[in-house]
């Protein structure tokens, strides 16, 4: 029976990556040179052990070899035969990284950085005080080859308790019989009187004669499991002086080459299977190896909740069909009731199905203790990383996309935000800086905040830079938000000087773009000398959004409800035309730019009189704008279809959807609209 191992390999990778995370977290929590926390090391050891076992079975020999060294080291630490030095922990941490790369390479059929692997192997070996050997060297069996025999005489005397280990002598006889012609002679001499007989003990012993060319090892192998549970003697059968048995200790051509060949054949088989696996892997490459197409682990409670809701849906459905049979107007109330219930069921079901895609942000957060540990060491800063809310759940796709931006933000805080210890002490702050990472759920969105208690943004330097580059105009009054906003500007963020003076900036535009790509927004607050805080707001899911439908002419557009502040009717005399800036409404004491959407989209038959239409005030990235539309329609949940995939990217449009009546509605990209029409501020 051929079993395709490829189907389990995906699981192997998943659990291995989880194992690596466990190892990393465990290693980071180890206090070097302190008393050994046995459970801690055991956990790390077990994770390494599982990876080793699995990688061997699934044919990733380089991973097995490498993990074996790590495991050996951990075993020594566990047994107290080796100190948990900082050097050892750091080497193990680097080995975890290396192992992760090896596994990624294995998953994607890519090349590993052999030099790096070898370098780490050498370091592990050094710690283990092992001789450094080439990775492929395997100990050759150099036992003297036993002479060939005609067969074996086997004296087998089990100890009374042998069967307590589940070993059945009959099993062994059966196996021996496969090796040659077997004669079994029982010896009942030790059998006690019936009254003294313990039914669970073994009193029999056997003399066995095996005639055949079976080598010693093959016969001994049969008894391997009962070693220590019996007396066993193997004597070669020499009936007569035959040319073979008289032969000097030279390996007999009939036996040794045979076993060697068997071994080779076995390897060949294994190799062939691997290539088959690889071929199958290739064929399925798009399904298995693309990182986005991976699988997801879902808690059984989530699945149960969905099943439960489907049950309710079925009940509602049968209620409706019962109503439909011979319906008359007197039962209209009942119909409404049932439809309401259907509505509720659908919404609940949708929410719960969505939850299946949700993962705790801890899967991203867990890498930061390591990052902070490594970087603070390099920078000579003392940092206390405080993580809160890592159980907050987010859509899997969002989780995958926010990792890099967060790394960037934390790095910035560490590198530029936090002062060196002496500077902090001079400023009257504790020498140890604090970086906080918080995730929480608020009004239908997920918020992630990265804060530090460092020096904060340098407003003056930013303002100067903004004026120099012409992004800001001299003489105008700018709010803090408007100035901090500059760090997200691509032109500024890459400028070296600004990151030196203000402390932040490299690639912040990329950070913002990544966040926006997943429908989120990013904001920054800062207090000089007290620190900065960056708040990322993310949608719960990418697939569905709550939308406000608005009409412009014959068309229907959707504004993400999250961006909507309010909708107002305005008086035309409150609007000023400002040269170069379009129309500005004085709104609640603030100037609000007006964007006439029908102009932007070239819509005909739209309302053009400001007093006859409506102004929807929306906000994105901390800036507000008034979108002028004909009228508001309903609010509904919108399932987002990609416009890019089906047509092409249109600036100001985030996607499209199909409305209840079959029309296509375009979903407005608010921050895109604001940027397009007001590039600076």
């Amino acid at each position, binding site marked *: *029976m051929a079993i395709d191992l490829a189907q389990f390999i995906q699981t192997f990778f998943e659990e291995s990556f989880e194992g690596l995370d466990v190892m990393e977290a465990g290693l980071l929590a180890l206090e070097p040179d302190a008393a050994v926390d046995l459970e801690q090391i055991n956990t790390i050891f077990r994770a390494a052990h599982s990876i080793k076992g699995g990688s061997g079975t699934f044919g990733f020999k380089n991973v097995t070899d490498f993990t074996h060294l790590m495991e050996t080291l951990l075993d020594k630490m566990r047994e107290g035969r080796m100190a948990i030095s900082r050097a050892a922990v750091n080497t193990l941490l680097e080995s975890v990284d290396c192992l992760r790369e090896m596994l990624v390479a294995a998953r994607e059929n890519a090349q590993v950085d052999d030099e790096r692997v070898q370098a780490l192997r050498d370091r592990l070996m050094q710690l283990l005080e092992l001789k450094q050997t080439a990775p492929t060297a395997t100990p050759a069996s150099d036992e003297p080859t036993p002479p060939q025999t005609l067969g074996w005489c086997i004296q087998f005397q089990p100890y009374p308790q042998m069967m307590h280990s589940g070993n059945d002598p009959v099993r062994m006889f059966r196996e021996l019989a496969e090796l040659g012609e077997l004669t079994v002679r029982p010896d009942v001499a030790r059998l006690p009187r019936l009254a003294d007989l313990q039914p669970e003990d073994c009193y029999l012993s056997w003399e066995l004669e095996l005639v055949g060319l079976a080598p010693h090892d093959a016969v001994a192998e049969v008894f391997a499991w009962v070693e220590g549970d019996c007396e066993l003697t193997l004597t070669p059968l020499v009936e007569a002086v035959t040319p073979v048995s008289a032969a000097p200790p030279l390996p007999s051509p009939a036996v040794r080459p045979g076993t060697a060949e068997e071994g080779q054949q076995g390897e060949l088989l294994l190799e062939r299977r691997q290539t088959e696996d690889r071929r199958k892997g290739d064929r399925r490459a798009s399904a298995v190896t693309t990182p986005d197409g991976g699988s997801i682990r879902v808690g059984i409670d989530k699945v149960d909740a969905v099943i439960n809701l489907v049950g309710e849906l079925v009940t509602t459905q049968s209620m409706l069909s019962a109503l439909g049979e011979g319906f008359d107007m007197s039962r209209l109330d009942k119909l409404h009731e049932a439809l309401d219930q259907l509505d509720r069921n659908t919404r609940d079901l949708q929410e719960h199905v969505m939850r299946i895609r949700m993962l705790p942000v801890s899967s991203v957060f867990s890498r930061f203790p390591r990052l902070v540990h490594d970087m603070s060491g390099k920078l000579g800063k003392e940092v206390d990383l405080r993580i809160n809310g890592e159980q907050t759940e987010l859509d899997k796709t969002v989780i995958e996309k926010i990792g890099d931006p967060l790394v960037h933000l934390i790095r910035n805080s560490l590198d530029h935000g936090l002062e060196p210890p002496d500077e902090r002490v001079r400023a009257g702050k504790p020498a140890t800086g604090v970086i906080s990472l918080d995730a929480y759920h608020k009004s239908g969105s997920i918020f992630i905040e990265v804060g530090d208690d460092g020096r904060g943004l340098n407003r003056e330097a930013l303002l100067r830079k903004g004026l120099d580059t012409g992004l800001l105009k001299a003489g105008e009054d700018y709010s803090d938000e408007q100035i901090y906003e500059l760090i997200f500007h691509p032109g500024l963020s890459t400028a070296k000087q600004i990151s030196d003076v203000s402390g932040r900036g490299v690639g912040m535009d990329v950070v913002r773009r990544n966040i926006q790509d997943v429908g989120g927004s990013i904001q920054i607050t800062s207090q000089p000398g007290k620190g900065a805080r960056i708040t990322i707001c993310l949608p719960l899911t990418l697939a569905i959004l709550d939308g406000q439908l608005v009409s412009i002419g014959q068309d229907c557009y959707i504004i993400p409800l999250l961006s909507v502040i309010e909708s107002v009717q305005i008086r035309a005399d409150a609007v000023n035309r400002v040269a170069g800036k379009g129309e500005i409404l004085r709104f609640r004491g603030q100037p609000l730019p007006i964007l006439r959407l029908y102009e932007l989209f070239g819509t005909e038959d739209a309302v053009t009189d400001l007093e006859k239409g409506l102004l929807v005030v929306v906000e994105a990235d901390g800036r507000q704008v008034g979108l002028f539309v004909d009228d508001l329609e309903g609010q509904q949940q919108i399932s987002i279809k990609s416009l890019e995939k089906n047509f092409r990217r249109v600036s100001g449009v985030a996607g499209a959807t199909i409305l209840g009546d079959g029309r296509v509605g375009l979903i407005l990209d608010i921050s895109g609209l604001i940027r397009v029409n007001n590039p600076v501020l």
Partner: protein
Amino acid sequence: MANILVVDDSASMRQMVEFTLKEAGHQVTVAEDGQAALAIAKGGLTSDLVITDVNMPNMDGITLIRELRSLPAYKFTPILTLTTESTTEKKMEGKDAGATGWIVKPFNPEKLLATVNKVLG
């Protein structure tokens, strides 16, 4: 067809062993650590064979074997350990606890089935 209890904390190994044994027509029950396996056994499941990993959280394979051997229904049941250790010392740890034998990792489905058939006869 035999009833086989498979205990391993690694999902991939569990799946592989379960799939292989089921393909061969056996009835398979899986548990993800010693504690779960023991609960299943105490719950009244009888088995013709137990295959268990050694290194597991909550309850390791060695403890599981000791516990199983104290249950009348598992006193003589063959128990095989899955071990990566080829050294006698480690294999013997399982034996001392009452294991029947072992399967050394890495193993492939063929080797697994050969060993299982050997034990089941």
